[in-house]
């Protein structure tokens, strides 16, 4: 069934990759496809920021709903699908055996994405929960938990049934992300939806969840990919690897406490914000370890390494900004402004997504058994997406500075603040358009690569192929 791979990239394809090809490519393709709606939502929402009357007649697309649609499609569409594919692949490769329970992964992926579509329709019609990063309507949430658990099963099995006894940093991060997300999601569901806590405690709980999405889920997924890929592309062992456990446990145990920094000065206990300052500063250990471990990527060649280099730099930068903006004196200028939006953009697009892109560029040739179909599209995507990220972060940050300075002075009217932000917000819109175009290039390239790759990777045929390769000799 599997045609013999015929080009250079295939040299690195292991039987493990061949066996997991269908399900993992399904996740990757779904994830990358989600970038298109999420990019369209982001573009529309950013146009509304400087031209508020844009699409104003359409109740489905008010600015609030568009923002919720955008972040939901981005997090639960793009990041979740691709992150899971990366984690499962890393665990399979490190485990040394082909993935088991892959039909669970396929079923989970289908239900996850169907649930997400339903959730987006729900948000557009006004059923969002209004909690940032947790906007999926309550009726799809249980489905999402089960679907995620189903997808994660094969990863946890691959880890517990691994060939070698010892573990590697990529293991820890991947397992943590697979294992913790359902717990975190369920906990948030209980205290926000089923048995809602009272008054402003909801804001604290929502802040805890939103921070957990970053520190317990997406950052571990991205780091799992990096820990696996960086030694491969740089051809060197990770430097200062002995400190990796410190970085891991620091992120896991301290990270989720830092969510309170968005509530500085708000109607919550003062210790919430103080705790956020302390824990944000502690997180510097994590960022230091990541910087030390990933030093090797600075000189590594290849597209994947370029993306990961960008992603790691953005990750470190956003870590520093988190610490800075958690201080009350700084938060006074940045709180409630576009500077916070810029930080989110830098974190989720500049850091997480770029590391994911790096992993995608590394993964797809090894799963599909052939190189990317067009080097030009790869270069185009790389250039445009970097331009887009830098442009949108710069635009939002500039708008944030203007807004922060204006808001502090009561004599500056909201109207003049708005006028002052118009230009940087236009820059942001251009950047969002660039990102959308860039990601369309990736979609085209990915589809072309899959279409021309080999007979088995035509959508469904590959997905439900019996696991006959398990019996095939591993050579």
């Amino acid at each position: 069934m599997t045609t013999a791979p015929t080009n250079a990239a295939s040299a690195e394809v292991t039987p493990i990759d061949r066996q997991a090809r269908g399900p993992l490519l399904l996740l990757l393709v779904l994830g990358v496809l989600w970038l298109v709606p999420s990019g369209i939502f982001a573009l529309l929402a950013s146009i509304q920021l400087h031209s508020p009357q844009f699409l104003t007649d359409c109740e489905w697309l008010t600015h609030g709903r568009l923002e919720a649609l955008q972040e939901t499609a981005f997090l639960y569409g793009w990041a979740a699908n691709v992150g899971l594919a990366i984690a499962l692949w890393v665990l399979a490769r490190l485990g040394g055996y082909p993935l088991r329970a892959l039909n669970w992964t396929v079923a989970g992926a289908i239900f996850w994405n169907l649930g997400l579509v339903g959730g987006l329709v729900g948000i557009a019609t006004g059923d969002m929960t209004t909690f940032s990063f947790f906007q999926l309507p309550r009726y799809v949430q249980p489905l999402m938990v089960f679907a995620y658990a189903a997808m994660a099963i094969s990863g946890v099995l691959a880890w517990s049934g691994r060939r070698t006894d010892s573990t590697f940093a990529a293991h820890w991060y991947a397992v943590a992300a697979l294992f913790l997300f359902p717990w975190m999601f369920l906990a948030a569901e209980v205290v926000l939806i089923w048995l809602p806590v009272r008054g402003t405690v909801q804001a604290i709980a929502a802040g805890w969840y939103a921070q957990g999405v970053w520190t317990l889920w997406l950052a571990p997924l991205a780091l799992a990919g990096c820990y696996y890929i960086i030694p491969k592309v740089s051809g060197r062992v990770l430097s200062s690897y002995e400190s990796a456990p410190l970085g891991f446990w620091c992120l896991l145990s301290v990270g989720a406490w830092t969510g309170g920094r968005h509530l500085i000065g708000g109607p919550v206990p003062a210790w919430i914000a103080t705790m956020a300052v302390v824990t944000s500063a502690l997180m510097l250990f994590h960022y230091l370890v990541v910087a030390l471990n990933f030093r090797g990527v600075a000189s590594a060649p290849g597209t994947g390494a370029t993306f990961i280099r960008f992603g790691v730099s953005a990750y470190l930068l956003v870590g520093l900004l988190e610490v800075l903006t958690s201080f009350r004196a700084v938060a006074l200028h940045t709180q409630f402004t576009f500077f916070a939006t810029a930080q989110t953009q830098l974190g989720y697009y500049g850091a997480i997504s770029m590391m994911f892109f790096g992993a995608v560029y590394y993964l797809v040739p090894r799963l599909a058994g052939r190189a990317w179909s067009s080097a030009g599209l790869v270069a185009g995507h790389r250039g445009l997406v970097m331009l887009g990220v830098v442009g949108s972060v710069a635009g939002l940050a500039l708008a944030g500075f203007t807004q922060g300075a204006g808001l502090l002075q009561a004599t500056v009217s909201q109207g003049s603040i708005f006028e002052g932000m118009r230009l940087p917000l236009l820059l942001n819109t251009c950047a969002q358009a660039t990102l959308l175009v860039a990601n369309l290039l990736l979609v085209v390239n990915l589809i072309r690569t899959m279409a021309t790759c080999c007979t088995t990777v035509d959508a469904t045929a590959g997905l439900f192929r019996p696991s006959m390769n398990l019996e095939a000799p591993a050579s």
Partner: protein
Amino acid sequence: MKNGPLFLLGLLVTIALSFLGVVIGSHAQLGNLVPFYDDAEGQAFPQRSSGIAARGQLVYGDLGCASCHTQQVRRPDYGSDQARGWGDRQSVARDYVHQSRPQLGASRLGPDLKNFGARKPVVASELDIFNFLFSGSARHPAYPFLFETRKVSGEVSAGSFLPAGKTPQSGFELVATERGRSLAAYLLSLTSGYDYPESKPVVLSKKVEGTK
């Protein structure tokens, strides 16, 4: 980290600790907060909002107003909230005890609305709100879907209005839908006029600073 169950247990402990500390900890502190009973006034604050205002909060939530408006006034010496007329005291947790889903918000592209129903110097009237929501402005979207043009049967309704620059169409009137009326009632219900014991000291500390 070779021991699988122990590793998973460790992961679970990390997430449980942060959940216990942040969420359950603040719940223990604020979860039993009750309205403050003022003996002199003979009633408890904050007062429950009317049914229509409670429905209006759902409209506020499902339109996503919180993506541009906060509902949390910071203390007078932290930011310009007071000077902008958004509220004379900081918002405290007790302000929100009756709200099923507080909309604190995280972005101030628009003004804070915590005290919208007691805004200084003038409080907007219901008709002002209708006009604004129907037509929008250079920096606020219009929400025409919260309104309907309907045929006048008998007398013109009390809540009908005519946006500036529009000529009246004879026999028809423009009125807010139920959602529009709820939203306006909710916005007007947003007041934090009562000073709780815990919301006072901050004003005091400002005076101390001022005398330095």
